[in-house]
């Protein structure tokens, strides 16, 4: 009886297991960190109670099969997170940040509820599993999927729902860590849950890819412009979420899950470590690279991406949407090799090649391991290559090259006015909401 009830409620599949593992892992690390970091705080105990509730609620959410339970756990998690974010309500800016996030989550929940309602209307099922596998085609399906997509976008701070994330840094550091590693990934999780339905609509996927790439580019640009460490990390999350969405749009859902998992760990670590930002000394990387070094790096990049391919079983010549990921691997591997080849390019080339191939293999491995776990779900479905993907590849490559070859000029020479205007526009676009800025020092409160 209880068993059946539990089965009706939850569904432990690969994605649920992976997400629950991520949440518990991050939760454990962050709690342990916070147990020392938050010492002396007046709400110390309450903080941990809420943290544990949040982790529990998230685990219920990722394993939920019933759409109502999913919705409830989703809302509860977000509500708990907002509570944790505000932390000290006497600090007005923190409270406003929380309100901003809460409004966004509410919007996301509304989208989700309407989407679920439509799905129920189409299928008469309340089980996600049943909906996904028994859904018949209906003209309501596309609106339902768009609503769920909007819910996912709001949760994952995808443009144009990004503002709350950039305004969320009034939270205690451990809360930011858990938010950037856990809750913002909700959108990706939601799309993966309904992936089989999305795979029926290639045009929708192409749209998702576009929105994803756009957010990825904006997020990265803003990240590179920020001068405070936490907003830099937040903008970077934005970019990463965009890329994850783009991976969904490519039909490569397991790759998106891999991205979500590894980014979560990486970003949680960077937030917890943000106190050392002042000690991080940046080194001159000698941009623009010399032509020989750059050619060598491209060679290494090619070798690295082949190694990546070899593990992930994709192929340069397959001519499907996985090409985008291979190009990203190629660009990253080239960039990796650049510092190695900066001096004594020819002598260092063999070493650089070996290193890049090793890194490419490791990179491939860490993506592939998730793909293997998720294999039974059959969600790795590369789409036919279209001009949209090619445009995406061009955008990813062009921005990379632009930074490599033109950034140094900005430091010493005058720039054309469109660039100056672009700088100011981007700077303003990446500001937190002004009501969440502590414009008067004494408005800050820690009690």
């Amino acid at each position, binding site marked *: 009886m209880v068993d059946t009830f539990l089965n009706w409620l939850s569904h432990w599949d690969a994605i649920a297991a992976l997400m629950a593992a991520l949440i518990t892992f991050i939760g454990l690390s962050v709690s342990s960190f916070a147990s020392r970091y938050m010492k*002396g705080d007046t709400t110390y105990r309450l903080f941990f109670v809420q943290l544990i509730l949040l982790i529990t609620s998230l685990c219920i959410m990722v394993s939920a099969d019933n759409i109502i339970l999913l919705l409830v756990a989703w809302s509860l998690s977000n509500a708990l997170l907002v509570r944790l974010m505000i932390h000290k309500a006497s600090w007005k800016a923190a409270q406003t940040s929380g309100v901003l996030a809460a409004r966004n989550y509410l919007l996301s929940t509304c989208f989700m509820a309407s989407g679920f309602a439509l799905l129920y209307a189409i299928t008469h099922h309340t089980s996600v599993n049943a909906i996904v596998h028994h859904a018949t085609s209906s003209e309501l399906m596309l609106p339902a999927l768009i609503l769920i997509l909007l819910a996912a976008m709001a949760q994952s701070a995808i443009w144009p729902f990004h503002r709350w994330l950039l305004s969320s840094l*009034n939270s205690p550091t451990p809360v930011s860590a858990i938010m950037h590693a856990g809750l913002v990934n909700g959108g990706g999780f939601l799309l993966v849950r309904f992936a089989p339905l999305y795979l029926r609509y290639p045009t929708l996927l192409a749209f998702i890819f576009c929105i994803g790439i756009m957010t990825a580019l904006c997020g990265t640009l803003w990240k590179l412009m920020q001068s405070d460490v936490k907003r830099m990390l937040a903008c970077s999350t934005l970019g990463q979420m965009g890329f994850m969405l783009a991976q969904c749009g490519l039909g490569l859902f397991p790759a998106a899950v891999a991205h979500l998992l590894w980014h979560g760990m990486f970003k949680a670590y960077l937030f917890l470590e943000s106190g050392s930002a002042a000690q991080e000394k940046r080194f001159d990387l000698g941009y623009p690279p010399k032509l020989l070094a750059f050619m060598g790096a491209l060679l290494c990049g090619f070798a690295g991406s082949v190694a990546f391919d070899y593990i992930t079983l994709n192929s340069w010549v397959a001519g499907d949407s996985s090409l985008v990921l291979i190009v990203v691997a190629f*660009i990253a591997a080239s960039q990796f090799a650049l510092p190695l080849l900066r001096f004594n390019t020819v002598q260092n080339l063999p070493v650089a090649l070996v290193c890049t191939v090793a890194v490419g293999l490791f990179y491939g491995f860490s993506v592939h391991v998730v793909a293997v776990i998720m294999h039974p779900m059959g969600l790795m479905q590369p789409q036919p290559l279209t001009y949209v993907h090619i445009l995406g590849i061009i955008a990813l490559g062009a921005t990379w090259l632009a930074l490599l070859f033109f950034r140094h000029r900005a430091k010493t020479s005058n720039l054309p006015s469109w660039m100056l205007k672009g700088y100011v526009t981007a700077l*303003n676009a990446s500001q937190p909401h002004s009501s969440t800025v502590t414009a008067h020092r004494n408005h800050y409160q820690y009690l």
Partner: protein
Amino acid sequence: MDQLHMHTVNHDGAHYDTHYIQDVIAQSFKNSAPFWPLKNLIAVNPLQGLEHLPIEQALALANAYFQQKDLPARMYAVNCETIKWLQVYCDDGQATLPMPLRHHGMYTSWRQLAVYDARLHKHDKQKQTFLRELPQAAEEAIAQCLEYLRIAKEEHVQFLTLMLTTLPGWSSHVAYRTKWARADESNLYPMRQEDYVAIRLIISTLLWPKAKELLDWHKKAVVGSQSANTALVKMEIAEKAYRTRLLQKLATQAISASHTPAAQLIFCIDVRSEQFRKSLESTGDYQTLGFAGFFGIPAQITNVITHESYASCPVLISPKHTVKESPCSPRACENDKKGYERLVMLKSIYQSVKYAFTTPFALVESIGILSGVWMAIRSLMPRVAAHIKIAAVEAVRKTQELEPRLDTISLSDQCSYALNALKMMGFTSNFAPIIVLCGHGSTTQNNAYETALDCGACGGRHGGGSARILAAILNQKKVRAHLIQNGICIPQTTRFIAAEHNTTTDEVTLYNVPDVPEVESLRAHLQKARAINSQKRLEKMGEKTQALRAVSDAWLRAHDWAQVRPEWGLARNAAFIVGPRDLTASLDLEGRCFLHSYDYKKDPQGAYLTAILTAPMVVGQWINTQYLFSTLDNVAYGAGSKITLNITGKLGVMQGNASDLMTGLPLQSVYSSDTQAYHEAQRLLTVVFAPQALLDTIIQAQPVLHKLLGNGWAQLVCMQPDDRTMYLLNRDFTWQRLS
């Protein structure tokens, strides 16, 4: 309503000339105490600009300037935009795509960008024109804005002062950059006070044309701040109780006949040295002395391998010599160079992939799992993580001993530094076979305030470098010969050894140790002292621990990335004692006293005492007031809680999304919990063991002492050497005998 009143104003603003504007601005900056960047946090009195006033008046005025609950509502938007532009202009290496045109200077670059700032002009044609037609010179822009805002000439200084004090932290940074930043900050972009004020005024003119109302707001605030200052009353009670206790203890101490101990160790005057000295003295026949941690050498120290360079002297002094430091042998040099190159390569690869377009997506996917595992180890097993980290760093670049090259300091300078240092401490005879010069520094992880725990006398850096220089000087035969001519005879067998005391772990590292047997027992005793002190330190942290584990537990605090209170720094500092160690050696001063060694008998003219009172004592007062005000109001004068801080531009800290630059110390440095202060707010009490007449002459001649003691920013007690009577210096410079 928000229209600019341009038509009423003649456009050139010419009747205020450049000199007038510069003068007004210099005056308006008087209230802004400088604030040093995170790379060398120097303690400073946040009310430094008000020290010319009696403290009662200063506190009331400071309340009106810095502690107001609210600002006029329109000021918030002005602050928001100012913060936005300051963040990007002042950035010292965080942004990969920094603000363009910075090499032109602050105002010039901003002027070219501001025309595009829709948050300033709000697409209003008139405002856009105003921005486009801004004068080229900041001074002219200021003159123009003052007219637009209709500020009367006699209120210029007051208005500009308010423009600065309504965003006090960032103004402090500008004050630092324009008044105190040294040559080693040459990588930063130029900044002038006029630039900043011009930008601030232009933003105000655009967003709050009636900014003149600020003057009325301030007048009301001043009236509201006149009520009795309860904080001061409380402070006085605590001070008196402490003073009575301390002086009673000091009065009973005998000065014993001097003898030659097994070793002498010279520590920094820092309050943390006192505890360690006491612990060490209990382990054997050691004599310890206190001296400013830069050992009197005004040097800029440059590492020949990394080319990193820093001024290792108090900020009141400019470095006179650039001393190169390198590993001791050519081979070690070569190894260190290779190690450093390896380190740079590894970091460069990471940074190259992290700070670029497109590549970060692959970066997180490939090293996400590693950083996750590392995060878990650091959080759940900080001890293991620390060992791994240390081993990894050693594997990449092995720590090498360094030695200074003295060729940039002339022999006569070397001789005078050596002579002055010894004489100032009254340390001119009974030299032991080993004399250790011990600087200090801290070890903490993931801590924006790391340098606040380092040596203030060394410009907020580790003090080992300065110690190495003086030790090298004092070991030179020629210098010793010169000292003999001046009546200081150091035995040929005596060796000076440089060392560094780690104030977080109490480990003392000896440098370039000579091959003498005495060192071994000294090492053992230093180890023992570390154990004693670690236990005391953990008690103060409220941590219960067994004696056996004390060393390792204290060590863990230094290496735990989640630790917000690695050590208490100079918290609870209360007094500055100038005199021989015998006065204090058998007392438990609880790590609350700066101790400067001094023998009045060797200083008949009072020259050394003058130096002590006008340099180390003043630095002590800066430290004392920083702790004091950070404790009294951690929001207005401190940095707030570490748990929400956000490092901006690698130079300072904001709270959350963005805020004023949070100057002062964080909550966790002075409070043991959100509500419980650990530091005790009281003003520095200086106790001098010297004749009253000598002190009188010195105080009369020194304006800085007049200011601090006369206005009640510090207190002074004279302890008469002959009969041990105590006299407290009144604010009117009369002496009051204490019973």
